[in-house]
């Protein structure tokens, strides 16, 4: 929504709420708004305190697009359905936070700590997770098309039924990650370290698996691997290589 339309709708809301008497203590509201607008700081946590809001519980469904949340402690925050498009969350602490159904497209989440964080059904198109530390993070049914997870550390992360088309996991380290039923078309796992990764039912067509290291991975039951590119890999048995070739994977130097 453009700034003008957003402004129009909030003014219309205020007019209706004031007129019907739904908003009490108008002077108090104005005092808080004035305090935030005129505050000498732009720190999100400080402004939240000034507004008398709770960072953990008051921003579910709110519009936080383009906000600067760098280094912010959002652990255990309820951000279900929150609009965080283009928000900068780099280096933030997102442990145990809930981002289900949130809009995080083009958001910067590089270097975040997201242990046991939920991104279920969230929209994370072109989001940045580079160098993030993700443990038991839930991305089930999320749209992560074109997301960047380069150099990230992923332990027991759940990507089941998520969309990761053209996403990148360049040089990422995986341990016990699930990609069951995920769309990994054109996804790059180049130079990634894949330990105990489950690809059962995943679509791997045109994926870039060059120089990826495999250990204890489940590659059986792949939905397809048409034109997936393999080269310089370690840990792939002869049987698995043959099975991948039968699914349409290409093993050659490009």
């Amino acid at each position, binding site marked *: 929504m453009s700034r003008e339309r957003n402004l129009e709708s909030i*003014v219309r*809301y205020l007019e209706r709420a004031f007129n019907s008497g739904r908003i*009490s203590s108008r002077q108090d509201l104005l005092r808080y708004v*004035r305090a935030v*607008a005129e505050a000498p700081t732009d720190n999100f946590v400080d402004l939240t305190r000034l507004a008398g*809001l709770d960072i953990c519980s*008051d921003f579910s469904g709110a*519009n936080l697009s383009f906000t600067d949340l760098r280094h912010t402690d959002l652990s255990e925050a309820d951000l279900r359905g929150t609009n965080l498009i283009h928000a900068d969350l780099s280096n933030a602490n997102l442990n145990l936070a809930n981002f289900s159904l949130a809009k995080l497209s083009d958001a910067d989440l590089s270097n975040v700590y997201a242990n046991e964080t939920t991104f279920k059904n969230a929209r994370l198109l072109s989001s940045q997770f580079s160098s993030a530390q993700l443990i038991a993070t839930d991305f089930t049914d999320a749209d992560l098309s074109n997301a960047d997870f380069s150099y990230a550390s992923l332990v027991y992360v759940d990507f089941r039924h998520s969309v990761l088309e053209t996403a990148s996991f360049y040089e990422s380290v995986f341990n016990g990650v699930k990609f069951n039923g995920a769309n990994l078309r054109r996804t790059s796992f180049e130079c990634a370290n894949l330990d105990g990764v489950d690809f059962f039912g995943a679509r791997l067509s045109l994926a870039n698996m060059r120089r990826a290291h495999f250990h204890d991975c489940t590659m059986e039951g792949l939905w397809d691997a048409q034109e997936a590119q393999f080269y310089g890999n370690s840990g792939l048995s002869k049987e698995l290589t043959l099975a991948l070739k039968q699914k349409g994977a290409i093993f050659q130097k490009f």
Partner: protein
Amino acid sequence: MDSSYCREESIARSEFFTEGEYGDNPSVNTKPNYEDELTELKNILNRDLTPNKRAIIETLIYSWETKFPPASQNISKQSISVEKKKSENTTLTARYPSLNKAS
């Protein structure tokens, strides 16, 4: 003109316009009593605020109604529950007259 029509219209107008606001008399204040606050809020929202300040102000405005409901709403809610309890009691005593005797 039909006198009953005039009377009805007068009643309708008196119900619609609250006392001291709006009306045919130009000497009466025509501004709603929240006009000043609304104007100032509009002016603040029209400022070139940072995305952080704008987000927090918007969240504050939209959550105010829930966080600080008007006192009248609380009273009316309380009176509703009292009324409900009364009617529940009536229904119970109507059903079980022995309850009255016991009390």
